[in-house]
């Protein structure tokens, strides 16, 4: 079963060196214990471009699809046998990156 752990941010500054080293230690643990699938940080929402090609002509819009105070700052994809394990890991992830996180299962994961 795979879960998306989204990092929710409301600040503009990226991770501090302390936060980075905590995130790296947490990532190492995910790898060592077999939970690791993927992780990455995202550039600020202002760097996003929305593309809509449903009409056959790609329309580009500058900026994120949703303007909000809180935004997605990064993500983990983890492997866990059930939600309890995923929640425990996500709680540690939240502590490591010093931000709120959201846990969401992949469909048919």
């Amino acid at each position, binding site marked *: 079963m795979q*879960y998306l752990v989204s990092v929710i941010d409301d600040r503009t500054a990226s991770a501090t060196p302390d936060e980075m080293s905590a995130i790296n230690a947490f990532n190492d643990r995910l790898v060592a214990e077999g939970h690791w699938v993927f992780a990455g940080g995202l550039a600020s929402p202002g760097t996003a471009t929305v593309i809509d090609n449903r009409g056959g002509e790609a329309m580009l819009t500058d900026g994120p699809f949703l303007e909000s105070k809180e935004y997605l700052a990064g993500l983990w994809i983890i492997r866990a046998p*059930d939600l309890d394990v995923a929640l425990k890991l996500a709680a540690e992830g939240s502590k490591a990156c010093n931000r709120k996180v959201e846990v969401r299962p992949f469909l048919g994961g």
Partner: protein
Amino acid sequence: MTVAGVREAITRAHHEEWSRVVAALARRFGDLDVAEEAAAEAFAAAVERWPADGVPPSPGAWLATTAGRKAIDRVRRESKRADKQKEAQLLYDDDPAEPLGAIDDDRLRLIFTCCHPALAMESRVALTLRLVGGLTVAQIARAFLVRETAMGQRITRAKAKIKAARIPYRVPSAEDLPARVSGVLAVLFLVFNEGYLATGPDTDPVRPDLTAEAIRLGRLLRTFMPEDGEVAGLLALMLLTEARRTARVSAGGELVALDEQDRGAWDAALIAEGHQLVRERLAAAAAGAAPGRYQILAAINAVHTSARDVRDTDWSQVVALYDQLVRLDPSPVVALNRAIAVAELDGPEVALAAVNRLEPELAGYHAYHATRADLLRRLGRGRESRAAYDRAIELAGNTAETAALTRRRDRLR
């Protein structure tokens, strides 16, 4: 067997066997939907067949077998719809390494799953009443003044989340157990309180069906976890509160305060059972187990229910217990209840000063104003008392409570 006898047997089987049947199916089929519907079908079959065929010698076994067959039928029907994944899920079982302990029971797994902290509180309450309590969606909807379709959707959504996010069907590990048990107790206490003092103006002020259900679930939980102090504490608290239920509402539909209740109308059997539990926990506390909030609240209620006359109440004991509770839970509501006891011990003036300090946090809470009103009345400050009653009446939702407050206000000169 008479028609009434069969009906009684079905009701009893429903009480005793519903959660057992649902829980066993949920584990076997790894799917709460299948479990719930197959259990409902089995009970429907009992209603149809038992009057003609007679009540089977072992109703529980009959229901379990019938429900199992219904579930298999349903899974087969669904897997024919080209859904091989369902069959794979049939095989999904929880960790087989889990030790078989005193608390290993499918129903306990069911309770912990329904009360999982990843579900919203209102979903936990609804799921617990449906899957563990066996109430119908219509009954739960009525209890919480929600339309039946909305309640049905709430339950469906919760079950869908359990399945999609794979909330495990498992008794939590020892390390997580205390926090998870307190989550289960919170659900039971919420159900009980909604029955004990219904919040809405459009419902009966007291809902004995809900208080009875919460007590039944509390007793069930205690059979699984007889050593857990807070489980015993909550059960004792509910029993000692329920014991006063009939004395709590007057013939005219007014809430009757503790000091005005006819103590002869209290239920002696429930009180005895509650006192027994409190004594058990006092012994455990004497042996060094720190009591939690439910145990302390139960002890406070034990002091009240030990007094044959309100004048015999051991108020210093009540205040001492509240002191203990404040250390555990320094919330303004606890402080307010402590002040009510202080009024009896040290007089209304001391109590009023304590209550007034809570104004910033409790200005929107009817009990704050009702307490002030009573204290001001006792101090002969009629005009201020009347204003406080007015505010309390404005904020109170429960009809019996509004009636009692209005009467008290109108008695002021």
